[in-house]
C-alpha cells in the first residue's frame, strides 16, 4: 500500500515537472498577422502620426532633446556628458528593452534606466513616473529607434519574468473577469462599442492619446485597461507591469518601433 502510494507520488511529481518544463519553453502566442494599433485607427489619426510636425508627440521628443543636454543633480552632468549624441548612441537601444539590469538583476524598462542614471550618475532627484520630464526623455530615447524592429530575447535570465508576464496576460481580472488575451488575442479586429479592438502591441509608446490630450506611458495604458475591466490598479513601474511589458515585447518581436505614436 505504502509502496503503491510512493510510486504514485513519484509519477505525479514527474508529470508536474514535465509540465513546468513544457511551460517554460513555450514561446509567446502571437496574433497572425502582427498588426500595429495604427492599422486599426482612422485616417485622421494615421495622418497625424505620420506627419512629423503635426504629430503632437514630437513636442515631447523636442523637449527630451533639450533635457538631454541639460545638466542636473550634484554632479552637474547631463545625459549628453556620458552618452554624447543621442541619435548615434541611442540608436536601436529601445529595441532591446525591457532587459535585465546586470547590477541589480532586475527587469528594467527605459523609464527605469533613466531613473537609475539620474540616481547613480547624476545624483539628481528621481523623476516621477509619468512626469512630463520623464515622458519627454523616454520619448526622445525611444524615438531614436523608430522604424527598427523590436528585438528582445528570452533567456535563462529573464525567463521567470517572461513566465510571470505571460501568466498575467492570460489571468482573468476584475469585476468584468477578463484577461488581456480575451480581447487582444482572441477577439482583435472585432468591435467593442464603437472601437475596434487592437492587438495590443506596445511598440509606439510613449504615445499621444487624443483621449488623454497628452503623452502617456505604456504603464498608464495598462492602468486604463485594468480600470476598464474593474480590477485593482497597480502603480506605474510595478514589477508585475514590467513582466507584462517583457511578455508584450516578446509577443511583438520584429515589429517596428513607432515612438511617438498617436492613438485615439
Amino acid at each position, binding site marked *: 500500500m505504502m509502496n503503491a502510494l510512493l510510486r504514485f507520488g513519484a509519477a505525479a511529481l514527474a508529470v508536474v515537472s514535465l509540465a513546468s518544463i513544457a511551460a517554460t519553453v513555450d514561446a509567446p502566442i502571437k496574433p497572425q498577422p502582427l498588426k500595429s494599433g495604427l492599422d486599426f485607427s482612422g485616417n485622421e489619426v494615421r495622418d497625424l502620426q505620420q506627419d512629423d*510636425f*503635426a504629430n*503632437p508627440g*514630437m*513636442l*515631447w521628443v*523636442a*523637449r527630451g532633446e*533639450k533635457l538631454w543636454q541639460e545638466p542636473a543633480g550634484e554632479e552637474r552632468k547631463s545625459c549628453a556628458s556620458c552618452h554624447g549624441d543621442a541619435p548615434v548612441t541611442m540608436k536601436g537601444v529601445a529595441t532591446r528593452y525591457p532587459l535585465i539590469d546586470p547590477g541589480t538583476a532586475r527587469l528594467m524598462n527605459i523609464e527605469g534606466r533613466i531613473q537609475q542614471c539620474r540616481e547613480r550618475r547624476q545624483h539628481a532627484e528621481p523623476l516621477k513616473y509619468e512626469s512630463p520630464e520623464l515622458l519627454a526623455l523616454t520619448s526622445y530615447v525611444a524615438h531614436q529607434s523608430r522604424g527598427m524592429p523590436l528585438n528582445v530575447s528570452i533567456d535563462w535570465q529573464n525567463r521567470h519574468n517572461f513566465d510571470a508576464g505571460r501568466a498575467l496576460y492570460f489571468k482573468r481580472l476584475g469585476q468584468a473577469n477578463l484577461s488581456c488575451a480575451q480581447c487582444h488575442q482572441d477577439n482583435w479586429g472585432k468591435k467593442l462599442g464603437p472601437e475596434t479592438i487592437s492587438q495590443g502591441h506596445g511598440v509606439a509608446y510613449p504615445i499621444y492619446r*487624443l483621449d488623454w*490630450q*497628452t503623452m502617456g506611458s505604456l504603464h498608464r495604458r495598462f492602468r486604463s485597461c485594468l480600470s476598464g475591466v474593474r480590477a485593482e490598479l497597480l502603480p506605474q513601474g510595478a514589477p508585475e507591469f514590467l513582466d507584462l511589458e517583457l511578455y508584450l515585447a516578446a509577443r511583438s518581436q520584429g515589429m517596428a518601433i513607432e515612438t511617438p505614436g498617436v492613438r485615439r
Partner: protein
Amino acid sequence: MTARIQAPSTAKRGEVIEVRIAIQHTMETGFRVDEAGRPIPKNVVNKLVCRYNGTEVFRAEMGSGVSANPYLDFFTVADASGELVFDWIDDEGTTGSERVTLTVS
C-alpha cells in the same frame, strides 16, 4: 513651454510660404475638476501673434474649445529677408516666444 515651428529657411520673393507652429500646453478648459472635486481654473493660450519683420501677419485668439497642444498653420507672402517672431501668452500670464529666420532671394 516647448514649441516647434516649421517654415522654409529660403524662399523666392513673392512666393507664398506655409508656416506651422505647435505649442505644448495643457489648454485647461476651466470645466474640469481635480481629484478632490475642486474646479481647475481655466488656463489656455489665449493670444498668439506672428510678426514678420515687425509687421503683424497672423493673430490667433483661442478659447477653451481649442484642444491641448494647439497646432496652427497659415500662409504668408515672402517679400523680404528677415525674421518671423512668434509671441504668445496664456491666462496665467506665462509668455512664450520663438523665432525663425527667412532668407528671400
